[in-house]
């Protein structure tokens, strides 16, 4: 999609004028909405999901609400689509249900479609990651060709036929911290002075079980059926965090400001919408005080919506009252679980070889088509011929128990791109049809490479974090309400089906290390052997045997041929 660069180009031209005279011209062409979703989880924890959505038509060419930094970056590097997520902590889908955002893999995940092909696009991609690195104070500049995969099937749902290839860079070792949060908040029009962003208290946000912070930038038709020249630019920033109120000394009754440790601020003045939604799963008996004007059902759950634009709610606090005592861990199974789950483990021991074992669970009573995408760095040398796929009938609800006979499953389609040393990671994409109520196990083996001593990270014996595998599947909304992001328009693909993505855990690859204190010793020892070889052979080549003639007063007489 080449619309976005053009649009941003025009926007850039008009930007200075807009900045000089920032009028109250937030017309229908530009909108900003903020939303906080509070969802008590079955195990007593609470999910807070902040979403800040910008939307603009390309007819209005200036940066008013839209973050100019990102707009300029997208323009400069010809970005058609950009997703960025920083995540820490595993999303425990077996306890918490569907994740709040499509990216939930630990580390930093950058995906972009960049116009152009070949070397030019690669350069643009490097430029983009470097620029994003500067904006978000993250080590995204370490994303280069060697950890960028080009998945062809896993992220295909947004692509139209002429879309450029999607690049995915992944830094599994990236930590998320306040230094990333500060620039992230800076992109918001009210920053943290008012509105929901005022609730983003780093002290509480990083005392968490799961934290995911991200943004996505997309160009496309804002509503289905709209004409293409009225294409809009959608930019969303989101932050999801799972907190445990019990660790903060909160019992069965607490208010939102107690949970985040910040008072509820009035809505951001430029926001068109500013809402706090409380979502109560049916298995949790939840009371909300004061009761909001708007109550509805959403995904089969009670939803209480507070509009912060209304003066009365803005002043008050929202209290949550749990009727039952805080739920124990055992109540976890009650929530509706996602249809597909994936877990990936590393097998084998020792520093020379290993294997990957990925288990994909289908909890649904229908067959599901999925795409399994796994990209391993080049130093894990994948043997694609060892790939074996077996499927087992699920014996019980427990994901770990397998029963029944294993049957071989053949992929409906498979794309494999072998790795190049220090060049690109391997990428394996397998399209499978999972039988209903089954566990499907993918196994393949790899050899561990040996790195130069400078290529090992600090604390080399800890090993390398290996990025998660991703399973994508289309949610059938008639049976499964699907994840939260499917209900917002941004999650929908052009065909209307929502693609859910499940990320596996990271794994740690222990590579054999050289002795880092040895360079000089190795150089001297090896060169000694080499010199020994040279000396002896040189000796052989240049010196002849001769008979010592002792009769002639000790003088030597040479006899040569």
């Amino acid at each position: 999609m080449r619309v976005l660069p053009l649009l941003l180009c025009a926007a850039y031209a008009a930007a200075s004028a807009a900045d000089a005279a920032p009028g109250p011209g937030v017309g229908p062409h530009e909108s900003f909405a903020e939303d906080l979703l509070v969802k008590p989880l079955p195990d007593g924890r609470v999910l807070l999901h902040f979403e800040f959505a910008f939307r603009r038509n390309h007819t209005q060419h200036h940066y008013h609400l839209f973050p100019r930094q990102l707009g300029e970056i997208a323009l400069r590097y010809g970005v058609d689509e950009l997703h960025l997520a920083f995540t820490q902590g595993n999303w425990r889908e077996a306890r918490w249900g569907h994740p709040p955002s499509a990216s939930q893999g630990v580390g930093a995940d950058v995906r972009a479609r960049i116009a152009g092909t070949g070397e030019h696009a690669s350069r643009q991609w490097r430029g983009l990651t470097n620029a994003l690195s500067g904006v978000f104070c993250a080590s995204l500049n370490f994303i280069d060709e060697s950890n960028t995969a080009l998945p062809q099937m896993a992220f295909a749902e947004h692509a139209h036929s002429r879309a450029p290839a999607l690049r995915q860079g992944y830094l599994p070792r990236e930590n998320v911290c306040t230094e990333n949060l500060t620039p992230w908040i800076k992109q918001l029009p009210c920053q943290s002075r008012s509105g929901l962003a005022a609730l983003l208290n780093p002290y509480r946000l990083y005392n968490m079980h799961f934290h995911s912070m991200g943004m996505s930038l997309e160009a496309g038709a804002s509503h289905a059926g709209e004409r293409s020249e009225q294409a809009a630019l959608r930019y969303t920033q989101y932050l999801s965090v799972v907190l445990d109120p019990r660790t903060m000394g909160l019992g069965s009754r607490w208010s939102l400001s107690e949970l985040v440790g910040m008072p509820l601020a009035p809505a951001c003045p430029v926001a068109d919408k500013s809402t706090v939604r409380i979502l109560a799963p049916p298995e949790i008996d939840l009371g909300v005080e004061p009761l909001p004007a708007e109550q509805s059902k959403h995904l089969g759950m009670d939803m209480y919506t507070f509009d912060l634009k209304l003066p009365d709610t803005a002043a008050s606090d929202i209290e949550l009252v749990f009727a039952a005592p805080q739920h124990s861990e055992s109540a976890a199974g009650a929530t509706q679980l996602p249809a597909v789950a994936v877990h990936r483990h590393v097998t084998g021991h020792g520093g020379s070889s290993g294997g990957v074992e990925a288990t994909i669970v289908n909890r649904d009573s229908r067959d599901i088509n999925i795409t399994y995408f796994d990209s391993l760095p080049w130093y894990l040398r994948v043997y694609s011929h060892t790939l074996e796929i077996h499927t087992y009938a699920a014996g019980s609800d427990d994901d770990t128990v397998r029963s029944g006979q294993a049957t071989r499953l053949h992929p409906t389609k498979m794309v494999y791109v072998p790795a190049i040393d220090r060049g690109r990671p391997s990428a394996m994409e397998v399209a499978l049809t999972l039988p209903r109520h089954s566990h499907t196990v993918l196994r393949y083996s790899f050899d561990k490479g040996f790195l130069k001593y400078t290529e090992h990270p600090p604390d080399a014996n800890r090993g390398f974090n290996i990025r998660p595998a991703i399973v994508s599947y289309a949610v059938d909304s008639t049976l499964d309400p699907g994840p939260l992001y499917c209900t917002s328009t941004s999650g929908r693909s052009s065909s209307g089906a929502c693609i859910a993505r499940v990320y596996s855990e990271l794994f740690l690859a222990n590579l054999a290390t050289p002795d880092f204190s040895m360079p000089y010793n190795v150089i001297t020892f090896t060169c000694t052997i080499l010199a020994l070889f040279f000396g002896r052979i040189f000796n052989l080549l240049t010196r002849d045997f001769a008979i010592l003639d002792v009769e002639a007063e000790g003088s030597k007489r040479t006899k040569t041929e």
Partner: protein
Amino acid sequence: MSADTVETVDHDGDKRNPKKLSKQELANALAETLSRRSSSKHDTPDEPPASVARISEGSRLLRILLLGFALRLAVLTFASDFVARNLSMRVELSTPVTSYKRLVEGLYLASHGISPFDGGLFHQSPILLALFKVPYAWLPQLFSDAMYAGTDVATAMVLALIAAKKATLPAFAARPLVPGESRFRCLPSTVALLYLFNPLTLATCLARSSIMFSHLATVSALYFGIGGHIGYASVFAAVATHLSLYPVMLIAPISLMAAERNTPSAAAGQNQTTSRATGIALTLAKFAAAFASLHLLFAAVYGSEYFTATLDFTLRVSDLQPNVGLFWYFFIEIFDEFRPFFIAVFQLTALAFTVPISWRFRKDPLFGSVMLIGVISALKSYPAWGDLSLFLGLIPLYEELIKYMQYTFLSANLILFGVGLAPVFWYLWIEQGSGNANFFYAATLVYVFGQISLLFDLGSAMLRRELDIDYPEARERTVIQE
């Protein structure tokens, strides 16, 4: 002069210039060898009839080869689990350029329409892809196992043929012996036996290392070289070069063999030089033509990236998987700015001795080849035990040098320690984690030093023996090196 020497001179009269050696002649040579052996053993004039010797020598060779083949195939078939667990992935046997698992991956990728050379895993020659394409896709595992076992057995057989033919070469047949020496003790079948049942060879074959194909091409090139079939020799040398790069060094001794063949013994001095030069140039041209046509063929099928992934890869050493050579730890530890320089130094150390060694032993180009194979085994970028096994397999051809070697005890111990300690230290480093990389590195240093010691010893034994032949009185006098 002893009776042996007289006999030799007679024999020279018969076959001064055997341009072509038919099978019958070869059998005669085998028989002759045995008769000489028995004569030297008993030192009696009444020899057993030649016909008896011929049968027993031929059948002995056949039995050894069959036994070797059966043993290999049996282990590969019935103990495949043991092989897969303990041998296949052993770094001392399989290197990135010879590993069987990587070959299978390459075949798998090729069969799925992905270029196997567009990746960091497969670095073996397109020859092997072509060779295993059908067995991989259609035939049971037994067939490809039989190919590996058969290749090893064929190598042993060619070694035996070389041993038999060596007796008829002017370089040997025309040379007198050192007084008291018998011409042959090591039978062709013993040469085959020593190669085939060397534990290192056996392990290499069981690990299905593709270095064996390179070995077969190498020894075939030598066999045709000493037989005077320079065209075949050049083609085999080109194939061996495509398989593992370093056999390119052998083209120097092979061209000397050609020069020797090209020289009529009675030719005048000026004429001789010219014909020698022609022979060398012609061999080099044949080799270049064979190499280039193979290259063009592979480039047409797989694109030029095959070259980057195979021969260029061997030169650049970008996969630092440990092996029994000197390269891996050095290039793990070397500072980045010196990397290209030291790669050039290391590769040149091996390659630069091609011409000097060949020239030094120009009287006997076969010995020059043996020395070069020893250099390759010690200094190639991805060596394995299999490389040493070929060098060790060739040494019995020069059985007469063994008693001239001064450091056999030292060399044998160094090599045995190197071979024995490598798996132990590998286990301690990789599996247990109680050792570190230096342990394994130390074992490889000992191993390489053992080979260098053996190589030097062999070369100086040759030179010392030459002196004894030229000046038999040297045996009673003090001999120095100057």
